[in-house]
């Protein structure tokens, strides 16, 4: 006995196996991201507004990345529709674009990450805080590392505004060249790049986007497989290949859907 309903739907439920499987999986994904969104809400409500960074992420880049994901969502559904219309070459084209979109998204995301890892905040002993860049643009610098290197002071290029001044201030374009200032190590209470340990905001930012990026990566691998070696199934079991493309597409739409929520809550609010 072979396993039934791998390509044809079961008459009474009207669905084939993999579709049931993927929807169940997506249900669990809803709970996974739902728990993280709940965490976001609780941490944000619990944080003092001046401790919750806003306006530090690059909105144009984030918007572009959103558009990339939306475009890939269109192409992935087009790839499936092409198979339904028996246009194998069109499927290949759309599938390739989807994979490229996924890789573009990941490339841009890693660029954004790097940007944060070299952007710093300094808490001074007098209670003031400034954000800016360290000389030489090092990544992951901390006060302990500065002290361990035996430095007396750091050369710091401050930003025009600190995020605690509010969203409006952060929306002003940061024109003009800034002068680097020297800050004695003795005056520094804490120094942190915008890494997860910086604050609960960056903790949840990196956790959510990191987990999302892993999903994008996973989706890209599956889609690349269906574009490459997996596509051969077209000549043996076209219905099953169409199902596989549909199922991977459902996953991909979900990843897009998560990003639709992530973008405003992390970049804009």
């Amino acid at each position, binding site marked *: *006995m*072979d*396993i*039934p*309903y791998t390509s044809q739907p*079961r008459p009474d*439920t009207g*669905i*084939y*196996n*993999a579709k*049931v*499987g993927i929807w*169940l*999986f997506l*249900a*669990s*994904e809803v*709970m*996974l*991201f*739902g*728990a*993280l969104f709940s*965490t976001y809400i*609780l*941490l944000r409500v*619990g*944080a003092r507004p001046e*401790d919750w960074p806003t306006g530090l992420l690059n909105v144009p880049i984030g918007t572009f990345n959103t558009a990339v994901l939306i475009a890939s969502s269109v192409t992935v559904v087009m790839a499936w529709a092409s198979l339904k219309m028996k246009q194998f070459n069109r499927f290949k084209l759309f599938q390739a674009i989807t994979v490229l979109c996924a890789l573009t998204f990941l490339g841009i995301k890693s660029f954004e990450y790097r940007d944060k890892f070299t952007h710093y905040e300094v808490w001074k002993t007098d209670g003031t805080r400034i954000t800016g860049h360290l000389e030489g643009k090092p990544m992951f610098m901390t006060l302990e590392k500065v002290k361990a290197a035996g430095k007396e002071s750091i050369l710091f290029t401050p930003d025009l505004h600190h995020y605690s001044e509010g969203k409006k201030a952060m929306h002003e374009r940061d024109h003009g060249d800034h002068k680097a200032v020297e800050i004695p190590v003795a005056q520094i209470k804490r120094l*942190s790049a915008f*890494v*997860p*340990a*910086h*604050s*609960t905001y960056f*903790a*949840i930012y*990196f*956790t959510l986007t990191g*987990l999302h990026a892993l999903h994008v990566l996973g989706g890209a691998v599956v889609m690349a497989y269906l574009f490459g070696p997996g596509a051969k199934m077209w000549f043996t079991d076209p219905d099953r290949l169409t199902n596989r493309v549909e199922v991977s597409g459902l996953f991909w739409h979900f990843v897009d859907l998560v990003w639709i929520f992530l973008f405003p809550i992390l970049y804009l609010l």
Partner: protein
Amino acid sequence: MQATTHTMPHAGVHEAHHEEQGFWRKYIFSTDHKVIGIQYGLTALVFLLFGFFLMMMMRWQIAHPGQPIPLVGWLLERVLGDVAAKGVMSPDLYNSFGAMHGTIMVFLAIVPLAFGAFGNYVVPLQIGAPDMAFPRVNMASYQAYVLGGIIMFVSFFIPGGAAQAGWTSYSPLATSIPTDGQTFWLVGMIFLITSSLLGAVNFIATIIQLRAPGMTWMRLPFFVWAQFVTGFLLLLAFPPLEAAGIMQLMDKVAGTSFFLPTGLAVGGELANISGGGSPLLWQHLFWFLGHPEVYVLILPAMGIVCEVIANNTRKPIWGYKSLVYSALCIGFLSFIVWAHHMYLTGMGTKVATFFQTTTMIISIPSVIILTCFFISLWGGSIRFNTPMLFCLAFLPMFGIGGLTGLPLGFAASDLHLHDTYYVIAHFHYVVAPGTIFALFAGIYYWFPKMTGRMMNEFWGRVHFWGSLIFMNVVFQPMFAQGMSGMIRRMADGGANYATATLQKQGVEVIGGLSDKMMNLHTMILWGAVFLALVQIPFIINVFWSIKHGKKVTSDNPWNATTLEWQTPTPPPHGNFAHAPTVHRGPYEYSVPGHSSDFIPQNETDKGSRQH
């Protein structure tokens, strides 16, 4: 004569599978649900034994604090080093063992045994399916489980030892302990959760999609229903813990403060963290899984009990529909009761009232299920074989476990009982003489199907009576200890504060623990030792019976109705010689006017055989 009384391999079964699979493909990287089920079962039984040994060593330390552990003390020192210097269990080691006993028993032993092993082996057979819906996902599920188990096991041997913050791993304690045990625990848990998710997706999809023709929802054996609900619990309750695990891992390795509050001091110094997190959030996310998990442990056990009781009373189970709807109710309600584990966190009265209400409501379907089983016994001519004995013992034992949970569900009484040995006694009654007894019953009951041989009945009875007596010797005293105020998780069993009394104006406001209560530790220790001894016949019985047990003379040695008994023994790859068609409900025993006292589900109405 029954038409099924032939053990010869059915012609046509082997024709479908020309290529002989090699050893690795057949036994290690198998995609056959039956092999995976047995793999799950054996691995889980090994972990069950391992978790039991951890507990035995802890019981020695509790009864005789600071004295070298007999027999294995030297080995502990050899393997683990200073934490077991001179064979004495240090408090750190006690904490490790305590945390890992809970983790191993819940996530590596009982769930894999109840869900992974029995679910995998029996569900596709009972619904008349050739295999699970996604055989390769099934294999991946088992492999993720093994990986998670290995990570957990290895964590004992890393510097600093395994996780020490209890199986609940509350932050900030879990994050603040400077050793790497917790990191291993979290990574291991992520693998185990992944394994459960893959398994759950597979089970639910299989039950929805692969039911044989005629196997309508209300003709499913109750065991399948139980696994179906369990699948949903795992599917939807585990992800929040996975999220929490990822966040605690971030706290541990990336220095974030998800669960660490502002101003946290560790070791008398302000911790070097951003702060702003919430320790309570971990508890919420943990118990959002934690409570459904209780029903993950108990529902499959109820399913097994139902099958065995129907088969051995030779009459239909009483209230099949009530059972099904109760199981669904339990599944639904178990998602909204979790915070009854958290009354002592300073929860407000409104929220506490909500959770007390739902907690009381969820006890109703459990009682309905138990009542249905009890009524099913009424008027039956009961066959007292080993599986039936275990199931009969399950009923009162689970009853004790369930009813003693009610005082914990009320905030007022929970204030007194929270975190005492009473809690330990309560949930062990549910899981140990409850679930584990049902699992034993399942092993004795399905063993002939898996191997074609019966297990030894005499040694089965020795195993049963010994287990029943000593389980109670171990757990019954804990109720008394807990009610007298003995706190759990104390490395010396409370010796340190046994004599501590506090008097205010001549009134004893904190009373020490009486000698009577402390001496019960010794009794529990010996109860545990004898409990271990009576497991020896079981272990030997399992392995001995594979080769030397009494051969079954029919594919259906228990004269059962459900489909797994209508296959060849043991079922070949692909399970059924011919696709079965189902014509009736699962428990048609002693139907008036029928020639035999049971009618298999695939028998047509005319009484003639399908195959």
